[in-house]
Structure formats: C-alpha cells, structure tokens
C-alpha cells in the first residue's frame, strides 16, 4: 500500500497543531506581561509559530515530492498487536497477555515451530517476571482478576 497523501497530511497536522498551540498560548496562558515579563504561553507560542511557517514550507515541498510513502500490511499488524496487548491487559492482565501475544504471533503469523516459540516465551518470562517483576519489584496489572483475587 502506498500513499502520497500522507506526505501532504503530515505537514497539515503540524500546521493545525501549531495553530492550536499558538492560539492557546496567546489567549489562555498569556504571552507577555509588562510587570512579570514572559508568561507561560510566551515560549510555546513562538515555537508554534515557527512550526506553522515551517509546516507551510514543508506542505509546499510535499507537492513536488513524487515518492510515495509505503505502508505494508505486516507493519500495521505490529501496530494492531500493540493495541491488542493494551486492550487485553485490562481484561486478563499484563503477564498473561504477553504470553498469549507471543504464542499467537509466533504460531499464527510466523508459523514458527513449538521449540523456538517456547524459547522466546522463556526469554519473555525471564524479562517480564524475572527482571521487572522480581528484580525491579514491579506489580503488574491483573485485569478483571484484580478484583477477584
């Protein structure tokens, strides 16, 4: 999947963001006071204006850019995997989610044999439970089981 549109969309996002930050900076947080000097909106507003102008130049440049940005299905699958981990953590907890993710990823997507899958699971368990859980003492979220246990 290729798209030239995102090359134009990206500077537009920056321009809009710059305008929002500049507006809030000038109107809500204040730019300058005769007594106190620069106010909280002073520095971000200047940077927002710089971003708007540079964004406009970048937008103009994007019309000359004929090379399209390429998006591949597998890349989006990694993103979906990350979102899946986030959502699933609220249901079954973080540690079970991680194990489930590894098994699903390696068995369904990579079609990996069980031996390397178990090795990767072992490494992930060592990192998650061994390093973070036991050594660093991190308490991981347990999802809906948190209230039950």
């Amino acid at each position: 999947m290729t798209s030239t549109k995102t090359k134009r969309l990206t500077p537009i996002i920056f321009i809009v963001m710059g305008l929002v930050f500049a507006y809030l900076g000038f109107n809500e947080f204040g730019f300058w006071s005769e007594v106190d000097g620069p106010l909280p909106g002073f520095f971000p507003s200047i940077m927002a204006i710089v971003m708007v102008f540079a964004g406009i130049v970048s937008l103009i440049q994007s019309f000359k850019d004929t090379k399209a940005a390429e998006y591949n299905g597998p890349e989006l699958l990694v993103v979906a995997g990350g979102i899946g981990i986030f959502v699933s953590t609220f249901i079954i907890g973080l540690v079970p989610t991680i194990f489930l993710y590894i098994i699903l990823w390696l068995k369904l997507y990579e079609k990996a044999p069980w031996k390397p899958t178990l090795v990767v699971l072992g490494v992930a368990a060592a990192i998650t439970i061994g390093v973070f859980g036991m050594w660093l003492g991190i308490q991981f979220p347990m999802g809906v089981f948190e209230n039950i246990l």
Partner: protein
Amino acid sequence: MENFELLLRGFSVSLTPINIGAAFLGAILGLIVGAMPGIGSLAGVALLLPLTYKFNPTTAIIMLGALYYSNMYGGSFSAILLNIPGDSPAVMTALDGYPMAKKKKRPGQALFTANTASCIGGTIGIIILTFAGPALANIGLKFGPSEMTAILLIAMTSISWLVGENPIKGIVITAFGILLASMGMDTLSGAPRYDFGNMYLLGGIPFTPFVIGTVGFSQVISLINERNNKTEKIDAKLSIKGSLLSRRELKRLLFPSIRSGLLGTFVGVLPGAGATTGSFMGYAVQKRFKSEEELGTGAVEGIAACEAANNAAAAGSFAPLLALGIPGSGTGAVLLGGLMLWGLSPGPLLFQNEPDFAWGLISSLFLSNLLTLAVAIAIIPFLTKILSVPTKYMIPIITVVCVVGSYSTTYSMYGVLVMLLSGIFGYFLQKNDYPTAPMLLSFVLAPLLESNMRKAFIISGGSLNIFFTRPITLVLMLVFFAMILIPLVRSIINKTKKGKVA
C-alpha cells in the same frame, strides 16, 4: 594535575563492586544490542533505561554509559560478519571488515582489529574528556541565560540540519518536540498549561515511555520488513586464539587508530556530529594516508580508522553533555533525559556540585572501555550463534520489552499508551521522511531553553539587545544564524544552477 587527582577520586567511586557489575552488565547488553542489526544504540539505550531504575543515579548512569559505549563495539560485529552494520557508525566498518572476513577468510582478525582500534580510539577520547570536560565547564560557568539560550539554539539547529535530508522537516520536528515538552507545567511558574483538561497530561508526557515508543516500538514496526531477509553469513568457526593479530598487523592499526582517535574526539565534542560523522571522517582521512592494502579490499587500516573514530566520538560527546548539558546526538539526549530523571542537572555546575558523580562517570568510561574490550574478545567464539538469531524472534521480544518497560516507569497503563502512540507516530514520521532524533533532542532540551530564554528576557526587560550586545552571545548568535542561512543559501544556489543547466 588537579584533574588527575579528581579522576583518581572518581575511580574510588566507580571501582565499587556494584558499579563494576553495572558497567559489566552494560557492556554485555550494549554489545548484544549493538550487534543486532536494526536496533542501534538509540533504541538500545531507550529500551534498557527502565532497567537502571533499580540503581542509584551514579550506578545507573555508569551502566547506561557503558551500554552506549559498548554499542559502538557491537555495531561492528554484524558489519564484519554479515555485511549489515548494527548501527549507523558501523557503516564504514563494513567496507573493509566484510571483505577481510569473507574474501580473505579472516573474520576473527577483522573482529580483533575492530575491537583493538575501538579500545585505542576510546582511550584517547576519554583522556581528552578528562581534561576538556572540566575546562568546558569552566567556560560554561561564565555563561549567563543569554549565552545558554544561544548555545542551546545552536545544539538544536545543528542536529536538525545534520539529521535527515530536508532541513525544513528538521525545523518542523524540532518545534514539535518543544511543544510536546511544554505540555504539563510551566517551567518557571509551575502553572498548568496545554493539559487539555486531562489529569495525566498535567504531569506532562513521561520521558521514558515516549522515548521507548519513538525509537523502540517504531523500530519494531520497521523490523518486520527485514524478518525474512537472507544474509551472507561467514561460516568459519571462530576462536580467540585463531583471531589474534600478528605484530605487523598491530603496527598497521596503531597509527590510523591514534589519528582517528584524535579526530573522532574533536568531532564528538561538536553538537550534532556524533559517532557516525566521526566514523565517516576517520575513514575519509585514512584515504589520504598510505595504507598497506587498498581501502575497501579488507585493509586493517580501513577498519581501524573508522572504529577508533566512532568510539572516540562517543567518548568525546560526553564533554558537552556533562559540562554544558548539551547532548550531541539522539542517544546523548536519552542519556541526558536519564540524568534529569535522577534529579541531576548536567551543566557547568555539575563538576562543582556533583564531583563524585561527574568524575565517577568519567573514570567508569575507562573501566567500561577495558571491560568491553575483554567481553568483546571473549564472545568472539559465540558471535556467529548470537548473530544467527532470526529477526522474526526478536520482534515479539522487543515488543514485550517496550510494553513492560513503559509500564514499569509509570506504574500505569498510561505509560503503555504513551509508548504505543509515540511509536505509531514515530513510524508515521519515518515513513514520511521526518527524522525523529531532533524531536527527542528538543524534547529534552526545551525546558532548559525556555527557562534560559525567559530569564534573558526578564534581565533585558523584554529587549532582544541582550542577544546581540554581549560579546560571547553575539558570536554564538552569529554561528546560529550562519548555521540556518548557509544550507538555505547553498540549496537556493544549487537549484538556480540546476535550473540554468536544464
């Protein structure tokens, strides 16, 4: 002499069992991360940042320093054995390292050359850092808010211009990083701003999940395309004994290493240049000198020149980082962010207020250099095994480190959300040719720039004159404007020339 005494005091800090252990762990992890193609020092340091939370600030930074430093060694492994640089500074190493390993069937000697040259270059860099760091800090003590503003503007601009092909995109992304950093609380008054009524945003964007996402998770997304790449592996069995260099070869690598060590340190001190530029320059300079074999055909001199330069640059980059609080690269920005997380403020006062920390870190670099050399040589027999781990198995492991690391730094799923969003956005930026390193640098430096700029305006009563009437500020501002205008003018001239030719 005083520096030497302070360095010895630093050794009393770094040579404790826990600090030696931390440096050793950092060296091993750095070598592994550096050797894995596609991960790189920036992602490596970011991913391992949460691990250091267990330690006190000095031990934590000693570990990160060792990790960053050993990454430079590790990057050459895959460059030599697979012809795939583990990191951008190792690109030049592959030019002679791979031919020496493949055509001359001497992979062990190529690795040994890279390791020895790295150690020589690094030692030169650290020795210069020992003297240049405090000297730079003494100059920095004379800097007021206006000078610091100018120097921070130079640091941000230099990395925006140097990273990526399009300077305008560099400016956009730098400004974007500054705006992200301004969310949460105002640096001077503490008043809330840009929190959009969100409780989480009131505390600002958490640094570690943001960095892990931007460079770690986005890297995983990109790695998926490389998971089926076939590489030309060196099948030879490696042993330490079989990798040793002859006396003649050691002689051949000595002078290029010393020369590149000096050059690399100088490049490393410059903001925005870093190890990659050092490595390129080291190789380019070596071309002007006589080599026993032609460069590019597997010459010892070629490997030594770029490896010594990139390690020296990595050591040299600590000078502006510690003395002025200005990182020279994206990785330096992550290290600076790490220092700030532990409540340390790198800058001119660091050597005065936190001498144990500053000298402990510098002395630990000497230690890390030797430890990394020892580990790098010891793992030579296992390298082909380490490098044969398929990328497809690395992807879920790195994803897990990203998720767990982000959770552990915030103790909430908000950290994971920030990591995911910044990872997706980082991936989107990469696809559209926006470099992410300037964003990280500006995110870290923005609070410092803002407070100095506002203080300068308060001192001058709102007049811009303060930036043009003080001699040091004036020189620095001229450098800043030159850095902005020269590439623009050059680009306009080039376009005009092209137009005339067409």
